[in-house]
């Protein structure tokens, strides 16, 4: 069995956290944004430890701490125990579900997820037109649900870049599905996740290569699906990795504009893609770094279903992430994840412009792209 | 009052209780900390004010007491070295010992209080600690108060407190610091444990001519930021150079920078070189080292310093120092100034006001010059001698009321 997935190891992790002088606490964006000691990784794990030991009852009032995490893994960088609070807290959420103590904002989430998934897939077909979709092929594009929801311009930009690089057209995967299922795990709905994964896998298997715009989807498909016995033999790469292999073909502008790169937490710390986005961006811009970047990147607040369970905190996390750029007099930020783009754009202070990597590249290389019209039934 | 005098005479010996002419005061000179405690108890019981006086006592009229009877408590006879711990470079001394006397005792052992301006060492240890004035510091050894590792003092109720001697502690507020700088209002210091230094392996001096006082000040802080720790550093403006170092040719805006470094040979040389590079970066050049040697000898009284000496000083932080210098210069024509007592907190501007013939100003002319200089310096952001932050005065008053409910401990001070 793998190290972090045995009950003995999880028990050790919970006890290690309970007795630890909370060395990771400065690196949790949820607790740093709120200032709340009860939301540091150690306190969240300690709460779970008390729950599983029967020292606290399984109730919504006691399980709330389990949801105050985006799974960003910033805490793991400062943990010598090798603990994985993000992962263990998800296990806690699964137990909370089973004990009828799930987060009130996630009541009926399984249904809501499925409904959203279908709606986004249908709307996308309408927006882009069926000719941009395919059910099989050598290569397919999986933008991710947040991109399909609020980032359709970014998808258009990506498609324009694919064409310009001579690798297009890259059709969007046509399966009536928008999301690889990570949010179901974040809600602790492991059965639903397994069922959904099966459907996604079936769709993806029909392609040789899949380019993914969402970092959580990438992690789910390449790392978490197999845990549920779902295999995807397709080659899966993130958009950033894909563009990086062709980056040399991108034209270099005469004047390189400075652009900050925000590492999406899942991309940097779960999937290990740090260098490729910088290589792509560096072709067309002067890459600038946040104070906490790379392995130290700070989460935009979009993960772990936080925007559903603690929406004010999630937005505050995004604002906090961008405050450094605002304080430096403003600037442009590029990121390589649909969820980050959504969260940061929504919370960008004046003078800070946020765009997805593909859109940034398109703009800086004067690659024209047409954002599709909003779908008729956009809520 | 005479009852009290008699009672005190019984405690310390009648010959050590003398009336102070022209005031309702008696000069009392106890021989030991125990006697100090007794004197304070008796005086407080009689409602007399207790004013600590140290070396150089000149029976000055103490302000703010009206006709209230008072005791001038002299620590002159508390002049013992209680303990000398050479292994730890600590010595415990009684408060009446002067800095100079202590240095004389330490010198044969190759020890010293440290590189403090010799001019301050005429005071008693109690005075050095109890009264905070700017300039008791050097870059090498810091502010004099930092040399205090422990304090013994007598409170208003006659209790003696001793603060534990430890290099550093985390046992609450630093209670010794309540007594430092509080001029006897919270307790009369009877003894202190001081940090000592060994005689350095090498002492070097150097002199430089710098295009301007501002450049010299910049050079000084440049060197200090490179962690240079000079034993002494002084910037002398042209007016003062001409008066103090005749024969040196320099322009009106130029300045002489003299410095002394000390420590293990390589370190002293390194510090001197750091100053030289900083001066070089500011457009200055080396000057006759004899000038620095002269300055250093005068500093220790080995050679006479030409009169008159400074009659005004203002202390300023690194950001305000240059402006303070220029402000005083402009306010009083013909003034001679130097800047010294450098550390990372800033330095002190000293000024000598003279008339056309070079004689010191006196009387009304002096008063006018001082008023101008004080106003100019304050506007430029400097702090004058005797200045106090008043923001926490209510807390000081409350503290004094707690420790000294009868209000006998130097009541006129720190008001």
């Amino acid at each position, binding site marked *: 069995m793998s190290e972090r997935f045995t*009950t003995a190891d*999880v028990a050790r992790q919970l006890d290690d956290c309970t*007795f*630890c*002088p*909370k060395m990771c606490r400065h690196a949790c964006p949820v607790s740093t944004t709120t*200032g709340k000691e*009860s939301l540091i990784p150690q306190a969240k794990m300690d709460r779970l430890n008390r729950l*599983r*030991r029967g020292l606290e009852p399984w109730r919504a009032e006691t399980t709330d701490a389990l949801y105050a995490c985006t799974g960003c893994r910033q805490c793991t*960088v*400062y*943990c010598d*125990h090798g603990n994985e609070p*993000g992962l*263990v807290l998800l296990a806690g959420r699964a137990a909370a579900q089973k004990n009828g103590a799930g987060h009130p904002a996630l009541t009926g989430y399984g249904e809501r997820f499925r409904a959203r998934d279908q709606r986004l897939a249908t709307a996308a077909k309408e927006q882009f037109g069926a000719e941009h979709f395919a059910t099989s092929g050598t290569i397919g594009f999986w933008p991710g649900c947040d991109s399909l929801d609020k980032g359709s311009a970014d998808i258009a930009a990506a498609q324009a870049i694919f064409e310009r690089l001579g690798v297009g057209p890259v059709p969007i995967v046509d399966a009536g599905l928008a999301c690889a299922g990570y949010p179901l*795990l974040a809600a602790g709905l*492991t059965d639903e996740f397994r069922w959904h994964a099966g459907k996604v896998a079936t769709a993806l298997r029909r392609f040789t290569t899949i380019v993914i715009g969402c970092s959580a989807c990438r*992690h789910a498909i390449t790392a978490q699906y197999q*845990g*549920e016995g779902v295999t995807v033999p397709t080659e899966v790469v993130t958009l950033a990795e894909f563009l990086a292999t062709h980056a040399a073909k991108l034209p270099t502008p005469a004047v390189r504009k400075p652009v900050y790169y925000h590492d999406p937490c899942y991309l940097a710390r779960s999937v290990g893609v740090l260098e490729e986005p910088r290589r792509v961006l560096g072709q067309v811009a002067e890459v600038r770094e946040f104070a906490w970047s790379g392995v130290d990147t700070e989460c935009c607040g979009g993960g772990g279903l936080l925007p559903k369970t603690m929406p004010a905190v999630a937005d505050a996390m995004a604002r906090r992430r961008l405050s450094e750029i605002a304080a430096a007099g403003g600037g442009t930020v590029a990121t390589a994840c649909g969820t980050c783009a959504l969260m940061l754009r929504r919370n960008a202070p004046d003078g800070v412009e946020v765009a997805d990597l593909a859109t940034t590249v398109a703009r800086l290389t004067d690659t024209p792209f047409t954002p599709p019209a909003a779908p008729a039934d956009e809520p | 009052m005479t009852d009290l005098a008699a009672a005190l005479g019984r405690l310390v010996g009648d010959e050590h209780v003398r009336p102070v002419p022209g005031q309702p005061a008696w000069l009392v000179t106890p021989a030991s900390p125990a006697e100090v405690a007794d004197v304070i108890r008796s005086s407080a019981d009689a409602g007399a004010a207790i004013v600590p006086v140290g070396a150089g006592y000149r029976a000055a009229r103490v302000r703010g007491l009206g006709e209230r009877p008072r005791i001038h408590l002299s620590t002159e006879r508390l002049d013992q070295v209680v303990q000398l711990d050479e*292994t*730890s470079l600590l010595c415990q001394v009684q408060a009446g010992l002067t800095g100079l006397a202590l240095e004389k005792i330490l010198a044969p052992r190759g020890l010293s209080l440290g590189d403090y301006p010799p001019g301050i060492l005429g005071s008693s240890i109690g005075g050095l600690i109890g*009264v*905070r*004035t700017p300039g008791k510091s050097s870059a090498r050894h810091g*502010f004099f108060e930092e040399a205090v590792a422990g304090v013994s003092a007598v*409170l208003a109720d006659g209790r003696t407190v001793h603060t*534990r*001697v430890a*290099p*550093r*502690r*985390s*046992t*609450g*507020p*630093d209670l010794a*610091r*309540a007594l430092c*700088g*509080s*001029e006897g209002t919270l307790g009369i210091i009877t003894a202190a444990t001081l*940090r000592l230094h*060994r005689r350095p392996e090498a002492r070097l001096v150097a002199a430089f001519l710098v295009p301007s006082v501002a450049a010299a000040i910049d050079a000084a802080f440049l060197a200090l*930021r*490179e*962690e240079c720790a000079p034993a002494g550093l002084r910037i002398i403006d042209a007016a003062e150079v001409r008066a103090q170092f005749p024969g040196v040719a320099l322009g009106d805006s130029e300045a002489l920078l003299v410095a002394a470094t000390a420590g*293990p040979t*390589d370190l002293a040389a390194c510090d001197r070189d*750091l100053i030289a590079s900083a001066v070089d970066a500011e457009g200055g050049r080396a000057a006759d080292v004899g000038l620095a040697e002269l300055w250093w000898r005068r500093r220790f009284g080995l050679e006479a310093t030409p009169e008159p000496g400074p009659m005004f000083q203002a*202390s300023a*932080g690194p950001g305000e120092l240059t402006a303070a210098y220029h402000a005083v210069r402009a306010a009083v024509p013909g003034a001679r100034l130097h800047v010294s007592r450098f550390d990372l907190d*800033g330095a002190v501007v000293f000024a000598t006001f003279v008339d056309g013939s070079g004689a010191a100003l006196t009387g009304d002319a002096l008063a006018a010059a001082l008023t101008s200089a004080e106003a100019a310096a304050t506007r430029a952001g400097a702090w004058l001698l005797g*200045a106090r932050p008043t*923001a926490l005065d209510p*807390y000081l008053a*409350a*503290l004094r009321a707690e*420790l000294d409910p009868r209000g006998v401990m130097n009541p006129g001070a720190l008001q």
Partner: protein
Amino acid sequence: MVVDADRVRRELEAIVGPRRVSLRAGDLDTYARDMWPRLLLARRDGAPPASLPTAVVWPETAREVAAIVKTARRLGVPIIPYGGGSGVCGGVVPVFGGITVDTKRMAALRGVRSRDQVVDVEAGLSGERFERELARRGYTFGNFPSSIYCSTVGGWLATRAAGQLSTKYGKVEDRVAGLTLVTGTGDIVDTDGPRRALGGPDWTQLILGSEGTLGIITSARLRLSPAPQLTVFRGFEVDNVAAGIEALRRVMQTGLRPAVVRLYDELDTFVNSFGHHEHDPERAHFQHTHAPAPLPGEGALPPLPPPPRPAESRGPLERLLGLARRKKDGLRGDAFTALLDRPRFINTVVGAVAEKIARKGCKLIIGLEGARLRTEVEAALTFAELERAGARDLGEEPGRAWHARRYAVSYKMSGVFRDGAFVDTMEVATRWSNLADLYYSVREAIGRHAVVMAHFSHAYPEGCSIYFTFAAHADDRAASERRYDAIWKDGLEAATRVGGTISHHHGVGLLRGPFMAGEHREAMAILGALKKSFDPDDVMNPGKLGLPSARWGSV
């Protein structure tokens, strides 16, 4: 005294709004404790905290703090400031209930005055974030405690903290240009001003170390140094503790200021040579950038373990087996948990073994950093002085290895507690001429009850600090607490008797309260007077600093 919790909530919400006040059980539970190991004994036993705050509040400005203090005075409830909650003395335990004021929403680094190299920073900023931001601007504050990941600037100032490089940079109290304090009357006061120029007591030094009993520090002006241009590490070996102490003394009294000096006694040197944690940056980087993945069929999420079996007494053999299973983790502290019932045996025998079999003497780590030129000169002089004192040069590697793992020791705590034992540290200090006495007395006193080792660090021209680490085991919570209390009583009484101070940098909190009278003796009158002046109603963190409280009774 019955507190109307609803009234407290309403009054606090009137100041900060509803989102920055909490009376929720989960929050109150978290804020009831810091990292005082004694509190973990109760927690491990499943016991709830002995005392809880009534409410937690998160102010964002000094004015909000002032309003909160005034409210507390009016309502007659205590106020407890809370920074990182990383203190090891119970300083934030709300022994008489009250309102816990978390400073972490006042966490701005307001600005640096480059001319005099002073930073204006709010109290709730995390130490690590503070230093990183300063580094980006080319500065350092120089305070690197092993708790830097989990402590705040305000907490440092309230306890007079020290970092591992204090030999060069001083403790925090050596680098404060001014404080902003909300006093116990609700005033906001600044203590800034050219300290050396102004008459009267140095208020900054009277507030530093007050651990929330005089007021709440909301921001501070701190003196910075330029970021070091050069860092040098070295390891040396000395014959024994006495030789090491002498070598350190000579270095410090030559006027040299290394950044870090660490002399490990025989036992600490011996233990350090085991479980040598390989520092593999590449492997670490991989682990940080790749989430662990399940094997096929294991489940996408790890399983949550069931409640553990009721704690049966684990005999020495079981513990040894536990140790064997965990050996690959390299947790060197585990070497003792299996045998902790025989502390004197361990202290004597293993100590002797360390001296004889290891036959290597004591390890000495030296580090210097600062301006390039001067640091080079000081390093050469320091190493020469050490060699003159008989130390043998081991090269850079031991120093670098220490630096790479310098925060690692804090993580070891978990393993010891998980194993049913406890571990804690006691740091004392005294002058050089007293140091050997202090070392042997305190070591003997602790050694009656626990396995103990020590290292000497935080050196000064006049003396040095000793840092004892001790571990012990007892059968249950009550016995553990008894043993814990006996260790501290005997250890601190020994320190006081021999003339050492009871704490060099950890502070007083609840732990050392009973020993403050012995530490300060008559000078406690000054502390009491300070308390009455700044906090006439006795609402500021009552029960701490060993201050008697007529209003609230005894702790």
